[in-house]
Protein backbone atom coordinates (compact mmCIF):
# COMPACT_ATOMS: atom_id res chain seq x y z
CA UNK A 1 0.00 0.00 0.00
CA UNK A 2 2.71 2.41 1.05
CA UNK A 3 4.75 1.40 -1.97
CA UNK A 4 1.80 2.04 -4.23
CA UNK A 5 1.11 5.48 -2.80
CA UNK A 6 4.78 6.29 -3.08
CA UNK A 7 4.74 5.16 -6.69
CA UNK A 8 1.86 7.48 -7.56
CA UNK A 9 3.46 10.28 -5.62
CA UNK A 10 6.69 9.94 -7.54
CA UNK A 11 5.07 9.71 -10.96
CA UNK A 12 2.81 12.63 -10.07
CA UNK A 13 5.76 14.73 -8.99
CA UNK A 14 7.65 13.80 -12.15
CA UNK A 15 4.83 14.81 -14.48
CA UNK A 16 4.14 17.78 -12.22
CA UNK A 17 7.71 19.02 -12.57
CA UNK A 18 7.34 18.92 -16.37
CA UNK A 19 4.02 20.77 -16.24
CA UNK A 20 5.57 23.27 -13.85
CA UNK A 21 8.35 24.02 -16.33
CA UNK A 22 5.81 24.60 -19.11
CA UNK A 23 3.59 26.63 -16.80
CA UNK A 24 6.58 28.72 -15.82
CA UNK A 25 7.56 29.35 -19.45
CA UNK A 26 3.94 30.29 -20.21
CA UNK A 27 3.62 32.69 -17.31
CA UNK A 28 7.06 34.21 -18.00
CA UNK A 29 5.94 35.13 -21.51
CA UNK A 30 2.56 36.25 -20.24
CA UNK A 31 3.94 38.51 -17.58
CA UNK A 32 6.37 40.34 -19.83
CA UNK A 33 4.17 40.58 -22.93
CA UNK A 34 0.56 40.06 -21.71
CA UNK A 35 0.35 37.52 -24.51
CA UNK A 36 -1.21 34.16 -23.66
CA UNK A 37 0.79 31.94 -25.92
CA UNK A 38 -1.13 28.80 -26.84
CA UNK A 39 1.88 27.67 -28.86
CA UNK A 40 3.97 27.30 -25.69
CA UNK A 41 3.67 23.50 -25.54
CA UNK A 42 4.74 23.22 -29.17
CA UNK A 43 8.22 24.32 -28.08
CA UNK A 44 8.31 21.24 -25.85
CA UNK A 45 7.13 18.94 -28.62
CA UNK A 46 9.64 20.42 -31.03
CA UNK A 47 12.52 20.20 -28.53
CA UNK A 48 11.77 16.55 -27.88
CA UNK A 49 11.31 15.70 -31.55
CA UNK A 50 14.49 17.46 -32.65
CA UNK A 51 16.51 15.67 -29.97
CA UNK A 52 15.01 12.34 -31.04
CA UNK A 53 15.79 13.06 -34.69
CA UNK A 54 19.39 14.02 -33.93
CA UNK A 55 19.97 10.89 -31.87
CA UNK A 56 18.61 9.01 -34.86
CA UNK A 57 21.47 10.58 -36.83
CA UNK A 58 23.87 8.93 -34.36
CA UNK A 59 24.76 12.17 -32.55
CA UNK A 60 25.68 11.75 -28.89
CA UNK A 61 22.88 12.11 -26.36
CA UNK A 62 24.08 15.26 -24.63
CA UNK A 63 24.72 17.07 -27.90
CA UNK A 64 21.32 16.12 -29.33
CA UNK A 65 19.49 17.36 -26.27
CA UNK A 66 21.43 20.61 -26.18
CA UNK A 67 20.95 21.15 -29.90
CA UNK A 68 17.21 20.54 -29.51
CA UNK A 69 16.96 23.21 -26.82
CA UNK A 70 19.22 25.62 -28.69
CA UNK A 71 17.34 25.34 -31.99
CA UNK A 72 14.00 25.89 -30.26
CA UNK A 73 15.42 28.93 -28.47
CA UNK A 74 16.37 30.37 -31.85
CA UNK A 75 12.89 29.61 -33.11
CA UNK A 76 11.51 31.52 -30.12
CA UNK A 77 13.68 34.48 -31.08
CA UNK A 78 12.51 34.36 -34.70
CA UNK A 79 8.85 34.09 -33.72
CA UNK A 80 9.19 37.09 -31.43
CA UNK A 81 10.96 39.14 -34.08
CA UNK A 82 8.82 38.24 -37.08
CA UNK A 83 5.35 37.73 -35.63
CA UNK A 84 4.88 38.75 -32.01
CA UNK A 85 6.35 42.22 -32.46
CA UNK A 86 3.83 42.88 -35.23
CA UNK A 87 0.74 41.69 -33.41
CA UNK A 88 1.32 43.14 -29.95
CA UNK A 89 -1.12 45.98 -30.54
CA UNK A 90 -3.85 43.78 -32.05
CA UNK A 91 -7.06 43.13 -30.11
CA UNK A 92 -6.59 40.33 -27.62
CA UNK A 93 -8.77 37.91 -29.57
CA UNK A 94 -6.60 38.29 -32.63
CA UNK A 95 -3.42 37.72 -30.62
CA UNK A 96 -4.81 34.49 -29.17
CA UNK A 97 -5.69 33.36 -32.70
CA UNK A 98 -2.21 34.24 -33.97
CA UNK A 99 -0.66 31.98 -31.35
CA UNK A 100 -3.08 29.25 -32.43
CA UNK A 101 -1.97 29.79 -36.02
CA UNK A 102 1.64 29.47 -34.87
CA UNK A 103 0.80 26.35 -32.96
CA UNK A 104 -0.82 24.76 -36.03
CA UNK A 105 2.11 25.81 -38.22
CA UNK A 106 4.63 24.21 -35.87
CA UNK A 107 2.54 21.02 -35.68
CA UNK A 108 2.26 21.11 -39.45
CA UNK A 109 6.04 21.23 -39.84
CA UNK A 110 6.33 18.34 -37.40
CA UNK A 111 3.92 16.24 -39.49
CA UNK A 112 5.84 17.05 -42.66
CA UNK A 113 9.19 16.12 -41.07
CA UNK A 114 8.27 13.19 -38.86
CA UNK A 115 4.87 12.00 -40.05
CA UNK A 116 2.19 10.98 -37.58
CA UNK A 117 4.25 8.33 -35.74
CA UNK A 118 5.17 8.51 -32.08
CA UNK A 119 8.76 8.35 -30.85
CA UNK A 120 10.63 7.96 -27.56
CA UNK A 121 13.91 9.55 -26.63
CA UNK A 122 16.44 7.21 -24.94
CA UNK A 123 16.71 7.79 -21.19
CA UNK A 124 19.40 10.19 -20.10
CA UNK A 125 21.04 7.47 -18.03
CA UNK A 126 19.81 3.89 -18.07
CA UNK A 127 16.21 2.70 -18.12
CA UNK A 128 16.47 0.27 -15.19
CA UNK A 129 14.28 1.38 -12.30
CA UNK A 130 15.78 1.80 -8.84
CA UNK A 131 13.83 0.19 -5.98
CA UNK A 132 13.14 2.61 -3.14
CA UNK A 133 10.80 1.48 -0.33
CA UNK A 134 9.15 -0.93 -2.77
CA UNK A 135 8.49 1.72 -5.40
CA UNK A 136 10.24 1.49 -8.75
CA UNK A 137 11.80 4.80 -9.67
CA UNK A 138 13.31 5.49 -13.07
CA UNK A 139 16.63 7.32 -13.17
CA UNK A 140 14.92 9.71 -15.60
CA UNK A 141 12.58 10.70 -12.77
CA UNK A 142 15.54 11.74 -10.67
CA UNK A 143 16.95 13.71 -13.59
CA UNK A 144 13.64 15.48 -14.14
CA UNK A 145 13.18 16.39 -10.48
CA UNK A 146 16.80 17.46 -10.07
CA UNK A 147 17.00 19.55 -13.23
CA UNK A 148 13.69 21.29 -12.72
CA UNK A 149 14.52 21.87 -9.05
CA UNK A 150 17.88 23.42 -9.88
CA UNK A 151 16.35 25.44 -12.68
CA UNK A 152 13.67 26.84 -10.37
CA UNK A 153 16.31 27.97 -7.91
CA UNK A 154 18.42 29.48 -10.70
CA UNK A 155 15.46 31.39 -12.05
CA UNK A 156 14.41 32.53 -8.64
CA UNK A 157 17.93 33.88 -8.22
CA UNK A 158 17.98 35.32 -11.74
CA UNK A 159 14.67 37.16 -11.44
CA UNK A 160 15.27 38.31 -7.89
CA UNK A 161 18.96 39.15 -7.76
CA UNK A 162 20.42 39.92 -11.16
CA UNK A 163 20.13 43.17 -13.05
CA UNK A 164 18.57 41.61 -16.16
CA UNK A 165 16.11 39.62 -14.11
CA UNK A 166 15.04 42.68 -12.15
CA UNK A 167 14.70 44.60 -15.41
CA UNK A 168 12.42 41.88 -16.74
CA UNK A 169 10.29 41.99 -13.63
CA UNK A 170 10.14 45.76 -13.69
CA UNK A 171 9.05 45.76 -17.30
CA UNK A 172 6.42 43.13 -16.59
CA UNK A 173 5.15 45.26 -13.73
CA UNK A 174 4.98 48.53 -15.64
CA UNK A 175 6.27 48.72 -19.17
CA UNK A 176 6.18 52.48 -19.48
CA UNK A 177 7.84 53.21 -16.16
CA UNK A 178 10.50 50.61 -16.84
CA UNK A 179 11.35 52.14 -20.19
CA UNK A 180 11.59 55.54 -18.48
CA UNK A 181 14.40 54.30 -16.28
CA UNK A 182 16.25 52.97 -19.31
CA UNK A 183 15.05 49.40 -19.62
CA UNK A 184 14.55 48.45 -23.25
CA UNK A 185 11.13 46.74 -23.30
CA UNK A 186 11.81 45.12 -26.67
CA UNK A 187 14.90 43.38 -25.27
CA UNK A 188 12.86 42.18 -22.31
CA UNK A 189 10.19 40.66 -24.52
CA UNK A 190 12.84 39.09 -26.72
CA UNK A 191 14.60 37.63 -23.72
CA UNK A 192 11.41 36.23 -22.24
CA UNK A 193 10.53 34.55 -25.52
CA UNK A 194 13.97 32.97 -25.76
CA UNK A 195 13.79 31.82 -22.13
CA UNK A 196 10.20 30.66 -22.58
CA UNK A 197 11.05 28.66 -25.68
CA UNK A 198 14.14 27.07 -24.18
CA UNK A 199 12.46 26.15 -20.89
CA UNK A 200 9.61 24.64 -22.92
CA UNK A 201 12.10 22.71 -25.04
CA UNK A 202 13.90 21.51 -21.92
CA UNK A 203 10.60 20.20 -20.54
CA UNK A 204 10.12 18.43 -23.86
CA UNK A 205 13.48 16.66 -23.91
CA UNK A 206 13.07 15.69 -20.25
CA UNK A 207 9.65 14.15 -20.75
CA UNK A 208 10.35 12.52 -24.14
CA UNK A 209 11.91 9.37 -22.61
CA UNK A 210 8.83 8.61 -20.49
CA UNK A 211 5.98 9.88 -22.69
CA UNK A 212 5.71 9.13 -26.40
CA UNK A 213 6.12 12.21 -28.57
CA UNK A 214 4.30 12.93 -31.79
CA UNK A 215 3.18 16.04 -33.61
CA UNK A 216 0.13 16.41 -31.33
CA UNK A 217 1.95 16.04 -27.99
CA UNK A 218 2.38 19.78 -27.76
CA UNK A 219 -1.36 20.40 -27.44
CA UNK A 220 -1.69 18.22 -24.36
CA UNK A 221 1.44 19.72 -22.80
CA UNK A 222 0.12 23.21 -23.56
CA UNK A 223 -3.22 22.76 -21.88
CA UNK A 224 -1.71 21.07 -18.84
CA UNK A 225 0.90 23.81 -18.55
CA UNK A 226 -1.69 26.55 -18.98
CA UNK A 227 -4.12 25.06 -16.46
CA UNK A 228 -1.22 24.64 -14.04
CA UNK A 229 -0.22 28.27 -14.53
CA UNK A 230 -3.79 29.48 -14.06
CA UNK A 231 -4.42 27.35 -10.99
CA UNK A 232 -1.15 28.30 -9.37
CA UNK A 233 -1.63 31.97 -10.04
CA UNK A 234 -0.07 33.29 -13.19
CA UNK A 235 1.48 36.35 -11.61
CA UNK A 236 3.80 34.54 -9.22
CA UNK A 237 6.91 32.45 -9.80
CA UNK A 238 5.96 29.94 -7.15
CA UNK A 239 2.51 29.63 -8.75
CA UNK A 240 3.79 27.66 -11.72
CA UNK A 241 5.53 25.15 -9.46
CA UNK A 242 2.54 24.73 -7.16
CA UNK A 243 0.09 24.49 -10.05
CA UNK A 244 2.27 22.11 -12.03
CA UNK A 245 2.75 19.74 -9.11
CA UNK A 246 -0.96 19.89 -8.27
CA UNK A 247 -2.00 19.00 -11.82
CA UNK A 248 0.63 16.24 -12.03
CA UNK A 249 -0.37 14.71 -8.68
CA UNK A 250 -4.10 14.90 -9.46
CA UNK A 251 -3.46 13.18 -12.77
CA UNK A 252 -1.39 10.36 -11.31
CA UNK A 253 -3.78 9.79 -8.38
CA UNK A 254 -6.70 9.59 -10.79
CA UNK A 255 -4.76 7.16 -12.94
CA UNK A 256 -4.22 5.02 -9.85
CA UNK A 257 -7.86 5.01 -8.74
CA UNK A 258 -9.63 4.54 -12.08
CA UNK A 259 -9.03 1.80 -14.66
CA UNK A 260 -6.14 2.79 -16.88
CA UNK A 261 -8.23 2.99 -20.04
CA UNK A 262 -10.08 5.99 -18.56
CA UNK A 263 -6.81 7.74 -17.75
CA UNK A 264 -7.11 10.40 -20.48
CA UNK A 265 -10.80 11.00 -19.86
CA UNK A 266 -10.24 11.54 -16.13
CA UNK A 267 -7.19 13.74 -16.65
CA UNK A 268 -9.04 15.98 -19.10
CA UNK A 269 -12.13 16.07 -16.90
CA UNK A 270 -10.00 17.19 -13.95
CA UNK A 271 -8.44 19.94 -16.07
CA UNK A 272 -11.84 21.17 -17.24
CA UNK A 273 -13.33 21.17 -13.74
CA UNK A 274 -10.28 22.84 -12.24
CA UNK A 275 -10.32 25.53 -14.90
CA UNK A 276 -14.02 26.23 -14.30
CA UNK A 277 -13.69 26.15 -10.53
CA UNK A 278 -10.50 28.13 -10.04
CA UNK A 279 -10.23 30.85 -12.63
CA UNK A 280 -9.29 33.51 -10.10
CA UNK A 281 -5.55 33.53 -10.61
CA UNK A 282 -5.67 34.77 -14.16
CA UNK A 283 -8.53 37.17 -13.68
CA UNK A 284 -6.68 38.95 -10.94
CA UNK A 285 -3.69 39.09 -13.23
CA UNK A 286 -5.20 40.45 -16.39
CA UNK A 287 -7.43 42.94 -14.62
CA UNK A 288 -4.43 45.04 -13.78
Amino acid at each position, binding site marked *: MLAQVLQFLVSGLTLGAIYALIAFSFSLVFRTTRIMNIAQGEFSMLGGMIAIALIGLALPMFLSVMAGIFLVAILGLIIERVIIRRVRTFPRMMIIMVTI*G*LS*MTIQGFAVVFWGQDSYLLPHLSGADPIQILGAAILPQTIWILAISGVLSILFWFFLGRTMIGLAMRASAENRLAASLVGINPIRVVQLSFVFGASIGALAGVLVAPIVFMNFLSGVLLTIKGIVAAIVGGIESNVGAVVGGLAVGLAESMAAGIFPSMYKDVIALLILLIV*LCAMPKGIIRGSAR
Partner: protein
Amino acid sequence: MKRSHLLGALIGIAFVVALPLFIKDEYTLGFLVLAGIVSLTVTGLNMLVGHAGQLSLGHGGFYALGAYASTILTIRFGFTPFPALMIAAIATGLVALLLGIPLLKMLTQFHLAVATLIFVMLINAILIVGGGWTGGFTGIQGQPPFSIGSVVFEGDTANYYLVWGIVFLGILFAAGLSNSQAGRVLRAIQGDETGAQSLGIDVAWEKVKVFVISAIYASVAGSLLAHYTGSVTPAQFGVGPSLEFMVMVFLGGKGSVIGGVVGGAFIKLLPQVTEFMKNYRLLVDGIILTGVLLFVPQGIVGLFKKIWDRRPGGKSPEEAGPLSSKESFSVALAKPEARGE
Protein backbone atom coordinates in the same frame (compact mmCIF):
# COMPACT_ATOMS: atom_id res chain seq x y z
CA MET B 1 -31.43 44.97 -46.98
CA LYS B 2 -29.63 47.01 -49.57
CA ARG B 3 -30.16 46.32 -53.27
CA SER B 4 -26.55 45.30 -53.91
CA HIS B 5 -26.85 42.79 -51.05
CA LEU B 6 -30.06 41.37 -52.45
CA LEU B 7 -28.54 41.08 -55.90
CA GLY B 8 -25.45 39.37 -54.47
CA ALA B 9 -27.60 36.98 -52.48
CA LEU B 10 -29.68 36.06 -55.55
CA ILE B 11 -26.56 35.43 -57.64
CA GLY B 12 -25.12 33.33 -54.84
CA ILE B 13 -28.29 31.27 -54.48
CA ALA B 14 -28.58 30.77 -58.24
CA PHE B 15 -24.95 29.66 -58.38
CA VAL B 16 -25.38 27.11 -55.57
CA VAL B 17 -28.66 25.79 -57.04
CA ALA B 18 -27.26 25.48 -60.55
CA LEU B 19 -23.89 23.99 -59.64
CA PRO B 20 -24.94 20.28 -59.67
CA LEU B 21 -26.26 20.73 -63.21
CA PHE B 22 -22.69 21.28 -64.37
CA ILE B 23 -20.90 18.86 -62.10
CA LYS B 24 -21.63 15.30 -63.10
CA ASP B 25 -18.64 13.87 -61.30
CA GLU B 26 -19.88 12.12 -58.13
CA TYR B 27 -16.61 12.62 -56.28
CA THR B 28 -16.62 16.39 -56.69
CA LEU B 29 -20.28 16.61 -55.84
CA GLY B 30 -19.56 14.63 -52.67
CA PHE B 31 -16.93 17.18 -51.74
CA LEU B 32 -19.45 19.96 -52.23
CA VAL B 33 -21.86 18.21 -49.86
CA LEU B 34 -19.11 17.95 -47.24
CA ALA B 35 -18.21 21.59 -47.86
CA GLY B 36 -21.83 22.50 -47.15
CA ILE B 37 -21.86 20.51 -43.90
CA VAL B 38 -18.68 22.19 -42.72
CA SER B 39 -19.96 25.61 -43.79
CA LEU B 40 -23.00 25.13 -41.57
CA THR B 41 -20.79 24.55 -38.52
CA VAL B 42 -18.59 27.49 -39.42
CA THR B 43 -21.59 29.78 -39.93
CA GLY B 44 -22.69 28.99 -36.38
CA LEU B 45 -19.20 29.39 -34.99
CA ASN B 46 -18.85 32.69 -36.80
CA MET B 47 -21.84 34.03 -34.86
CA LEU B 48 -19.99 33.24 -31.65
CA VAL B 49 -16.70 34.71 -32.83
CA GLY B 50 -18.01 37.60 -34.88
CA HIS B 51 -21.00 38.73 -32.87
CA ALA B 52 -20.26 37.66 -29.32
CA GLY B 53 -16.49 38.06 -29.60
CA GLN B 54 -15.77 34.69 -28.02
CA LEU B 55 -13.33 32.01 -29.16
CA SER B 56 -14.21 28.34 -29.23
CA LEU B 57 -11.54 25.84 -30.17
CA GLY B 58 -13.88 22.99 -29.38
CA HIS B 59 -16.74 23.06 -31.83
CA GLY B 60 -15.50 19.73 -33.15
CA GLY B 61 -16.84 18.41 -29.85
CA PHE B 62 -20.39 19.61 -30.57
CA TYR B 63 -20.04 18.38 -34.14
CA ALA B 64 -19.13 14.97 -32.70
CA LEU B 65 -22.03 15.00 -30.24
CA GLY B 66 -24.50 15.64 -33.08
CA ALA B 67 -23.01 12.95 -35.28
CA TYR B 68 -22.78 10.30 -32.55
CA ALA B 69 -26.15 11.11 -30.98
CA SER B 70 -27.88 10.79 -34.35
CA THR B 71 -26.00 7.60 -35.07
CA ILE B 72 -26.77 5.98 -31.73
CA LEU B 73 -30.42 7.06 -31.81
CA THR B 74 -31.01 5.67 -35.31
CA ILE B 75 -28.92 2.51 -35.11
CA ARG B 76 -29.32 1.44 -31.48
CA PHE B 77 -32.78 2.83 -30.71
CA GLY B 78 -34.48 2.68 -34.09
CA PHE B 79 -35.32 6.37 -34.38
CA THR B 80 -35.82 7.80 -37.85
CA PRO B 81 -33.17 10.33 -38.86
CA PHE B 82 -35.21 13.55 -38.59
CA PRO B 83 -36.31 13.16 -34.95
CA ALA B 84 -32.83 11.83 -34.17
CA LEU B 85 -31.32 15.02 -35.55
CA MET B 86 -33.69 17.16 -33.49
CA ILE B 87 -33.04 15.25 -30.26
CA ALA B 88 -29.29 15.36 -30.92
CA ALA B 89 -29.48 19.12 -31.45
CA ILE B 90 -31.41 19.65 -28.21
CA ALA B 91 -29.05 17.42 -26.24
CA THR B 92 -26.00 19.17 -27.66
CA GLY B 93 -27.56 22.52 -26.88
CA LEU B 94 -27.97 21.40 -23.25
CA VAL B 95 -24.34 20.30 -23.06
CA ALA B 96 -23.30 23.68 -24.46
CA LEU B 97 -25.48 25.39 -21.87
CA LEU B 98 -23.87 23.39 -19.05
CA LEU B 99 -20.42 24.20 -20.34
CA GLY B 100 -21.22 27.76 -21.29
CA ILE B 101 -22.77 29.00 -18.07
CA PRO B 102 -19.75 28.64 -15.79
CA LEU B 103 -17.33 29.55 -18.54
CA LEU B 104 -18.87 32.60 -20.09
CA LYS B 105 -20.17 33.97 -16.82
CA MET B 106 -16.89 34.38 -15.10
CA LEU B 107 -14.05 33.70 -17.44
CA THR B 108 -12.21 35.57 -20.14
CA GLN B 109 -11.92 34.84 -23.86
CA PHE B 110 -8.73 33.00 -23.20
CA HIS B 111 -10.33 30.75 -20.58
CA LEU B 112 -13.09 29.82 -22.98
CA ALA B 113 -10.54 29.04 -25.70
CA VAL B 114 -8.55 26.74 -23.40
CA ALA B 115 -11.64 25.16 -21.84
CA THR B 116 -13.21 24.40 -25.22
CA LEU B 117 -9.92 22.92 -26.35
CA ILE B 118 -9.99 20.63 -23.31
CA PHE B 119 -13.66 19.91 -24.04
CA VAL B 120 -13.02 18.63 -27.57
CA MET B 121 -10.15 16.46 -26.35
CA LEU B 122 -12.37 15.12 -23.60
CA ILE B 123 -15.17 14.26 -26.03
CA ASN B 124 -12.63 12.58 -28.29
CA ALA B 125 -11.23 10.55 -25.39
CA ILE B 126 -14.75 9.51 -24.35
CA LEU B 127 -15.58 8.40 -27.90
CA ILE B 128 -12.44 6.27 -27.94
CA VAL B 129 -13.11 4.52 -24.62
CA GLY B 130 -16.86 4.34 -25.21
CA GLY B 131 -16.65 0.66 -26.14
CA GLY B 132 -19.90 -0.78 -27.42
CA TRP B 133 -21.68 2.56 -27.34
CA THR B 134 -19.36 4.51 -29.59
CA GLY B 135 -17.38 1.76 -31.28
CA GLY B 136 -13.97 2.97 -30.06
CA PHE B 137 -11.34 3.91 -32.63
CA THR B 138 -13.24 2.39 -35.53
CA GLY B 139 -16.44 4.28 -34.75
CA ILE B 140 -19.86 3.24 -36.04
CA GLN B 141 -20.85 2.52 -39.61
CA GLY B 142 -24.14 1.95 -41.39
CA GLN B 143 -26.22 5.05 -40.57
CA PRO B 144 -29.39 5.24 -42.68
CA PRO B 145 -29.58 8.09 -45.23
CA PHE B 146 -31.35 11.20 -43.96
CA SER B 147 -35.12 11.21 -44.38
CA ILE B 148 -38.06 13.40 -43.44
CA GLY B 149 -41.26 11.34 -43.37
CA SER B 150 -41.26 9.33 -46.55
CA VAL B 151 -38.75 11.55 -48.39
CA VAL B 152 -35.37 9.83 -48.35
CA PHE B 153 -32.27 11.82 -49.28
CA GLU B 154 -30.14 9.25 -50.99
CA GLY B 155 -27.27 9.95 -53.35
CA ASP B 156 -25.08 12.98 -53.77
CA THR B 157 -27.46 15.28 -55.62
CA ALA B 158 -30.29 14.89 -53.12
CA ASN B 159 -27.91 15.40 -50.23
CA TYR B 160 -26.40 18.40 -51.95
CA TYR B 161 -29.74 20.17 -52.04
CA LEU B 162 -30.63 19.01 -48.53
CA VAL B 163 -27.39 20.26 -47.01
CA TRP B 164 -27.18 23.52 -48.90
CA GLY B 165 -30.86 24.15 -48.20
CA ILE B 166 -30.13 23.86 -44.48
CA VAL B 167 -27.03 26.04 -44.90
CA PHE B 168 -29.31 28.63 -46.52
CA LEU B 169 -31.69 28.49 -43.54
CA GLY B 170 -28.70 28.77 -41.23
CA ILE B 171 -27.47 31.87 -43.02
CA LEU B 172 -30.95 33.39 -42.96
CA PHE B 173 -31.16 32.84 -39.23
CA ALA B 174 -27.68 34.28 -38.69
CA ALA B 175 -28.52 37.31 -40.82
CA GLY B 176 -31.79 37.76 -38.96
CA LEU B 177 -30.00 37.58 -35.65
CA SER B 178 -27.35 39.99 -36.84
CA ASN B 179 -29.96 42.57 -37.85
CA SER B 180 -32.26 42.04 -34.88
CA GLN B 181 -32.13 43.67 -31.51
CA ALA B 182 -30.25 40.66 -30.19
CA GLY B 183 -27.59 41.23 -32.85
CA ARG B 184 -27.23 44.85 -31.88
CA VAL B 185 -26.97 43.85 -28.24
CA LEU B 186 -24.17 41.45 -29.14
CA ARG B 187 -22.32 44.09 -31.11
CA ALA B 188 -22.66 46.45 -28.21
CA ILE B 189 -21.08 43.83 -25.98
CA GLN B 190 -18.22 43.39 -28.37
CA GLY B 191 -17.71 47.09 -28.64
CA ASP B 192 -17.74 47.82 -24.95
CA GLU B 193 -18.68 45.15 -22.49
CA THR B 194 -18.86 47.41 -19.46
CA GLY B 195 -20.85 49.97 -21.42
CA ALA B 196 -23.33 47.32 -22.51
CA GLN B 197 -23.63 46.14 -18.93
CA SER B 198 -24.41 49.65 -17.75
CA LEU B 199 -27.31 49.75 -20.22
CA GLY B 200 -28.86 46.84 -18.40
CA ILE B 201 -27.76 44.11 -20.80
CA ASP B 202 -27.07 40.75 -19.19
CA VAL B 203 -23.77 40.35 -21.00
CA ALA B 204 -22.97 36.85 -19.81
CA TRP B 205 -26.39 35.50 -20.65
CA GLU B 206 -26.31 36.96 -24.17
CA LYS B 207 -22.96 35.27 -24.74
CA VAL B 208 -24.22 31.94 -23.41
CA LYS B 209 -27.19 32.11 -25.79
CA VAL B 210 -24.96 32.53 -28.84
CA PHE B 211 -22.66 29.80 -27.58
CA VAL B 212 -25.62 27.40 -27.37
CA ILE B 213 -26.95 28.42 -30.79
CA SER B 214 -23.56 27.91 -32.40
CA ALA B 215 -23.27 24.50 -30.74
CA ILE B 216 -26.66 23.55 -32.21
CA TYR B 217 -25.43 24.51 -35.68
CA ALA B 218 -22.46 22.21 -35.19
CA SER B 219 -24.70 19.43 -33.91
CA VAL B 220 -27.05 19.60 -36.90
CA ALA B 221 -24.04 19.58 -39.23
CA GLY B 222 -22.69 16.54 -37.39
CA SER B 223 -25.99 14.69 -37.76
CA LEU B 224 -26.09 15.48 -41.48
CA LEU B 225 -22.52 14.24 -41.82
CA ALA B 226 -23.30 10.95 -40.10
CA HIS B 227 -26.35 10.29 -42.29
CA TYR B 228 -24.62 11.36 -45.47
CA THR B 229 -21.37 9.42 -45.11
CA GLY B 230 -22.87 6.52 -43.15
CA SER B 231 -19.83 6.38 -40.92
CA VAL B 232 -18.41 8.17 -37.89
CA THR B 233 -14.98 7.77 -36.27
CA PRO B 234 -13.39 9.77 -33.43
CA ALA B 235 -10.60 11.00 -35.71
CA GLN B 236 -13.10 13.07 -37.71
CA PHE B 237 -13.86 15.23 -34.68
CA GLY B 238 -10.55 15.84 -32.93
CA VAL B 239 -8.56 18.95 -32.19
CA GLY B 240 -7.47 19.31 -35.83
CA PRO B 241 -10.97 19.72 -37.29
CA SER B 242 -11.95 22.03 -34.41
CA LEU B 243 -9.06 24.36 -35.11
CA GLU B 244 -9.75 24.14 -38.82
CA PHE B 245 -13.25 25.54 -38.18
CA MET B 246 -11.61 28.59 -36.62
CA VAL B 247 -9.28 28.95 -39.59
CA MET B 248 -12.38 28.96 -41.80
CA VAL B 249 -14.07 31.62 -39.68
CA PHE B 250 -11.15 34.01 -39.92
CA LEU B 251 -10.37 33.22 -43.54
CA GLY B 252 -13.96 33.79 -44.62
CA GLY B 253 -14.46 36.89 -42.57
CA LYS B 254 -15.15 37.16 -38.88
CA GLY B 255 -18.63 38.50 -38.25
CA SER B 256 -19.84 38.19 -41.83
CA VAL B 257 -22.93 36.02 -42.25
CA ILE B 258 -21.64 34.47 -45.44
CA GLY B 259 -18.04 34.39 -44.22
CA GLY B 260 -18.60 30.92 -42.80
CA VAL B 261 -19.63 29.54 -46.17
CA VAL B 262 -16.80 31.28 -48.02
CA GLY B 263 -14.13 30.13 -45.58
CA GLY B 264 -15.62 26.66 -45.16
CA ALA B 265 -15.92 26.01 -48.87
CA PHE B 266 -12.46 27.44 -49.55
CA ILE B 267 -10.61 25.25 -47.06
CA LYS B 268 -12.71 22.19 -47.72
CA LEU B 269 -12.22 22.39 -51.48
CA LEU B 270 -8.51 23.19 -51.23
CA PRO B 271 -7.39 19.54 -51.16
CA GLN B 272 -9.40 19.03 -54.33
CA VAL B 273 -7.14 21.46 -56.11
CA THR B 274 -3.88 20.39 -54.52
CA GLU B 275 -3.90 16.65 -54.15
CA PHE B 276 -0.38 16.54 -52.70
CA MET B 277 -1.61 18.11 -49.50
CA LYS B 278 -2.39 15.11 -47.34
CA ASN B 279 0.50 15.51 -44.93
CA TYR B 280 0.68 19.24 -45.48
CA ARG B 281 -2.88 19.93 -44.38
CA LEU B 282 -2.06 21.17 -40.90
CA LEU B 283 0.86 23.25 -42.11
CA VAL B 284 -1.23 24.91 -44.81
CA ASP B 285 -4.03 25.59 -42.31
CA GLY B 286 -1.59 27.12 -39.85
CA ILE B 287 0.05 29.32 -42.45
CA ILE B 288 -3.33 30.43 -43.81
CA LEU B 289 -4.55 31.35 -40.32
CA THR B 290 -1.41 33.25 -39.35
CA GLY B 291 -1.23 34.93 -42.75
CA VAL B 292 -4.87 35.98 -42.73
CA LEU B 293 -4.61 37.45 -39.22
CA LEU B 294 -1.46 39.37 -40.08
CA PHE B 295 -2.34 40.64 -43.53
CA VAL B 296 -6.11 40.41 -44.15
CA PRO B 297 -7.69 40.45 -40.69
CA GLN B 298 -11.09 41.23 -42.22
CA GLY B 299 -11.05 37.95 -44.19
CA ILE B 300 -12.06 37.28 -47.78
CA VAL B 301 -15.55 38.73 -47.48
CA GLY B 302 -14.29 41.86 -45.75
CA LEU B 303 -11.63 42.29 -48.39
CA PHE B 304 -14.15 42.09 -51.23
CA LYS B 305 -16.47 44.44 -49.41
CA LYS B 306 -13.67 46.94 -49.09
CA ILE B 307 -12.78 46.64 -52.77
CA TRP B 308 -16.47 46.98 -53.69
CA ASP B 309 -16.93 50.10 -51.56
CA ARG B 310 -13.81 51.71 -52.98
CA ARG B 311 -14.85 51.19 -56.60
CA PRO B 312 -15.29 54.31 -58.77
CA GLY B 313 -18.72 55.66 -58.00
CA GLY B 314 -18.82 53.69 -54.75
CA LYS B 315 -18.81 55.16 -51.32
CA SER B 316 -16.01 57.42 -50.29
CA PRO B 317 -13.74 55.79 -47.72
CA GLU B 318 -15.23 57.93 -44.95
CA GLU B 319 -18.77 57.20 -46.00
CA ALA B 320 -18.07 53.50 -46.41
CA GLY B 321 -16.97 53.53 -42.83
CA PRO B 322 -14.25 51.35 -41.43
CA LEU B 323 -14.83 47.62 -41.34
CA SER B 324 -15.67 46.34 -37.94
CA SER B 325 -12.42 44.45 -37.47
CA LYS B 326 -10.40 47.24 -38.99
CA GLU B 327 -12.15 49.66 -36.72
CA SER B 328 -11.22 47.72 -33.67
CA PHE B 329 -7.71 47.56 -35.05
CA SER B 330 -7.39 51.28 -35.34
CA VAL B 331 -8.73 51.68 -31.83
CA ALA B 332 -6.21 49.14 -30.65
CA LEU B 333 -3.37 50.85 -32.47
CA ALA B 334 -4.30 54.23 -31.11
CA LYS B 335 -4.67 53.41 -27.45
CA PRO B 336 -3.22 50.17 -26.14
CA GLU B 337 -4.33 51.11 -22.61
CA ALA B 338 -7.91 51.61 -23.70
CA ARG B 339 -8.28 47.88 -24.03
CA GLY B 340 -7.97 47.48 -20.30
CA GLU B 341 -4.55 45.85 -20.32
